[in-house]
């Protein structure tokens, strides 16, 4: 038994505790120590994640580097970890993004003593410890092969996330901004907690049904295996109810229209780094879990509900993009764009084709990278001008060309320009959907057009034209900020032209997932044949 996966989970967790225990950051030097420790921990996590990815053999078994530690025997729970292709790339994404988020938010948690406010001296370590705690819990969620362990960390990560949203944000806004922020944090928590509690009922239901048939365990491979070879049979009504219980939690987290309304609030009020953490990392657990748990545990119900879910995701694609076009607030625009993108991811998953699901998995990674670049540069811009309103900007490219250039790259990646990574995944998702559901695939294509609209309009309004008052003295990107953006841009370009390393890892896992739902790709024959094939399935 190797301990590599446990180490990947334990290092950020221990780092969170260590960071929180450091002496209060009341001087600049102490704050630098705190930040350096946190950054070093996240770098170590990245190294471990890279080691996981390096030792992952694409041709090997579904779950690799597996380990299992006894935890709560009374309920058949063990702390089991295992990396499959999908989980591995997402762990890698998380590990890449967290240090960058830390660097981007380097000064977000410095104490500022202004008139009438009172801030804790331990604010700095709170911020960095919470980021590490989120990272640890997300990594466990991606690696857990025990349904209960997954549930516990899926739910527990809400708490540090909640404090990150509510406790740290734009401090210039005064009491009104603080109210908005705490509203956003509470909304985030209540939505997700409700989802989680509904899932808890389903988790318990699954356990009770399995225990009735002599399988008192939460071990995912055991359960999916038993479901596949008929040892565990779940009554169709119960299966549908359980599927909906799981799916509801994941759809809130992902978020799928119409459960998305917490995301614009949360991403709008949080710091740019936290917003990246939400949309690029935490929300991915939702889509990831749809693939791993909904499809693996409830294959028949997944097929039953797939058309309905596709329609919802299609609405999400179009609705998110339309609302993004109309946004006046840069961060909320990014949030609605993300809702549109999550529609694509969920569509790819439930199209039940290998292109669709490979595309969805790549989409998770690429959306993470592209949105991180986009949002972080937007955050740099907002911190310079002190406003989130698009109307307050104009002509920035004349005063800060590098900032404008990286922002343009972020915009282009978001609209899936060919040559950038998101293009590959979006294309795969659309192809995968089209082969089974041509009408839905065609309508979804309009999402791309709308994406071009909101992304280019945003660039045009903020960066081109005459220099707006208040923007004249906006400085260009600093070295630290460049250091944040450069890897993201590089990865987006690299994966745009050469996605093979990722697809190699992802493909076997996708094939395994599809075989669990007894789905194979429709024959790429005549379009009419594909249509009827899709309807029969």
């Amino acid at each position, binding site marked *: 038994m190797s301990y590599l996966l446990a180490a990947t989970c334990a290092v950020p967790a221990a780092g969170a505790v260590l960071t929180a225990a450091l002496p209060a950051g009341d001087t600049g030097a102490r704050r630098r120590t705190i930040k350096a420790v946190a950054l070093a921990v996240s770098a170590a996590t990245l190294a471990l994640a890279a080691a996981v990815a390096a030792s992952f053999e694409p041709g090997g078994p579904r779950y690799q580097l597996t380990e299992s530690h*006894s935890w709560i*025997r009374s309920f058949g729970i063990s702390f089991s970890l295992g990396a499959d292709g999908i989980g591995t790339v997402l762990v890698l994404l998380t590990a890449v993004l967290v240090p960058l988020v830390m660097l981007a938010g380097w000064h977000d948690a410095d104490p500022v003593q202004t008139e009438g406010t009172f801030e804790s001296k*331990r604010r700095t370590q709170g911020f960095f410890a919470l980021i590490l705690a989120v990272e640890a819990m997300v990594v466990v969620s991606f690696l857990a092969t025990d349904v209960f362990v997954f549930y*516990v960390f899926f739910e527990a990560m809400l708490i540090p996330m909640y404090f990150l949203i509510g*406790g740290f944000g734009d401090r210039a806004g005064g009491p009104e901004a603080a109210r908005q922020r*705490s509203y956003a944090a509470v909304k985030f928590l*209540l939505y997700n907690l409700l989802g989680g509690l509904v899932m*808890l009922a389903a988790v318990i239901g699954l356990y009770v049904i399995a225990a009735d048939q002599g399988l008192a365990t939460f071990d995912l491979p055991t359960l999916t295996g038993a479901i596949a070879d008929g040892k565990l049979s779940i009554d169709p009504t119960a299966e549908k109810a359980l599927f909906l219980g799981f799916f509801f939690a994941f759809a809130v987290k992902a978020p799928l229209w119409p459960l998305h309304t917490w995301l614009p609030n949360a991403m709008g009020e949080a710091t740019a780094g936290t917003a990246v953490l939400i949309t690029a990392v935490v929300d991915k657990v939702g889509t990831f879990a749809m693939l791993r748990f909904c499809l693996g545990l409830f294959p028949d119900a997944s097929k039953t509900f797939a058309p309905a879910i596709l329609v919802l995701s299609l609405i999400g694609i179009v609705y998110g993009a339309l609302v993004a076009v109309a946004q006046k607030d840069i961060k909320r625009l990014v949030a609605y764009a993300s809702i549109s993108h999550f529609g694509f991811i969920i569509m790819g998953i439930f199209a039940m084709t290998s292109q669709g699901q490979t595309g969805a998995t790549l989409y998770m990674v690429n959306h993470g990278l592209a949105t991180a670049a986009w949002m972080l540069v937007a955050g740099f811009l907002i911190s310079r001008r002190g406003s989130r309103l698009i109307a307050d900007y104009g002509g920035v490219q004349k005063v800060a060309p590098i900032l404008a250039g990286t922002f343009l790259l972020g915009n282009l990646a978001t609209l899936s320009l060919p040559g950038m990574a998101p293009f590959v995944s979006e294309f795969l998702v659309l192809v995968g959907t089209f082969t089974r559901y041509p009408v839905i695939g065609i309508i979804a294509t309009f999402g791309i057009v709308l994406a071009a609209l909101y992304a280019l309009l945003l660039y045009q309004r903020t960066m081109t034209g005459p220099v707006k008052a208040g923007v004249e003295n906006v400085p260009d990107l600093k070295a630290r900020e460049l250091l944040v953006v450069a890897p993201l841009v590089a990865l987006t370009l690299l994966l745009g032209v050469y996605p093979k390393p990722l697809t190699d890892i992802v493909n076997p896992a996708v094939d395994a997932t599809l075989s669990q739902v007894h789905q194979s790709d429709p024959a790429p024959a005549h379009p009419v044949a594909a249509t009827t094939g899709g309807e029969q399935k």
Partner: protein
Amino acid sequence: MSWLAAAGGNSPSIPAPHIEYGQLSPMLVVFGAALVGVLVEAFLPRRRRFTAQVGVSLLGLVGAFAAVVVLAAQGHGTTKAGLLAMGAVAIDGPALFLQGVILLTAVLAVLTYAEGRLEPRLNGHTVDAFAPQGAAVPGGEQEREATREGFRTSEVFPLTLFAVGGMLLFPAANDLLTMFVALEVLSLPLYLLCALARRRRLLSQEAAVKYFLLGAFASAFFLFGTALLYGYAGSVSLPEIADVISGVAPVTPALAVTTQNDALLLIGLAMLAVGLLFKVGAVPFHSWTPDVYQGAPTPVTGFMAAATKTAAFGALLRLFYVAFPGLRWDWRPVMWGVAILTMVVGAILAVTQQDVKRLLAYSSIAHAGFILTGMIATDKQGLSAVLFYLLAYSFVTLGAFAVVTLVRDSKGEATHLSSWAGLGRRSPLLAAVFALFLLAFAGIPLTSGFTGKFAVFQAAAAGGATPLVIVGVLSSAVAAFFYIRVIVLMFFSDPQPGGASVAVPSPLTATAIAVGVLVTLGLGLLPQYFLDLATKASVFVR
């Protein structure tokens, strides 16, 4: 029933009942310590009483806990479980488990009672949360004099010990009369303790009167129910009642008449249930809870909320598992209704509360509903889940109320929520601890509250009570809202001018809170040992 026959027959000699002193020792030690406390009160000079009382109480409680551990280690909870004192008391797994929980919470409660650093010193005297002289009229000359002299009400310690003694007996009582006696022994000292707050004495006395009147009413219900059941089954012993109901007992002419009358049985059972559900604070018998929790001195509230609930659920479990196992379909729909109402009403009414003690009171009502959900499973799994839940809940509750004692302004404890605003910025550690307790109440994973909630819901689902589980998770979501409201207030709101500040406690309260935190995290992260313990303990002796 040889002794009944002997007493009623012509035999001149009454055989002395056989008492197993060793197995009753936890209760005997606590009652003994309580009597010593009364003597201390009578004979020691006033200035020495306080220290002596704390010492006697802690010694008694720790000694009794050691006795429980020894009894459990000897197997009295499992293989050697049995009926004692001529069938009046049962010492078995659930009894020992709950006695252990009650004793541990009582130890922590005594620590918070003895806290003397929170109130500002008066005329050079250390004072605590209790009225200087319970008998003095609030605001009267006598009270002013007692305050001037720096009196402390050290009677609270023997009173608490008597209450603990009753609580130990309550879940172990194997006949209805013993159960009634235990109920009274635990209740009467609590009524007094509720009236002894140093500040806001009128509120405190009002709470005590309310508690006493409603409690007396509930006791009367219980007693009347006992009488009706005796009329039905010809016995007050729980196993014998079960035998008569299930038809195992030989039919005597008297029984043949009474057992035809199911009304006796059903009304009697309903009345017993009213008495016990009142004590656990289940809806619709909950209305005393917020007032009493708010008015009582906070250390007493913490003790009451944790230990009384544990003891009362113990008695309720024994009643429904031992005496009425065959009657499930008769009482099940009613208990379903009570559980659903308790969860929903507790969670919804808590949302609008503005006082932290009232908020915790409503939260305790909602938790009573969750525990009832597990109880309704009526199997071994349900029993062990409830035992574990009570363990987890007791420590969270005690810790939370201990934190409440620390948050103060010039008028004493600042229980109004508005004065808690911004506490997280002034005292991040304390606010974090309280947030942990609130998250445990809300059942967030990695805390004891989640493990407990998972256990009871899982038992309920396995017992076929899926609708209860669904109501349970939905009311948990509502409940989460008001716990989170407090967290928002502490961490994300700006401190108000004149808001509360945090008093620095002595090691006594600090220990109580620290133990609460450790148990909350321990039962959340590594619950296996305690789940095993609860499973091993979950067999009632008959």
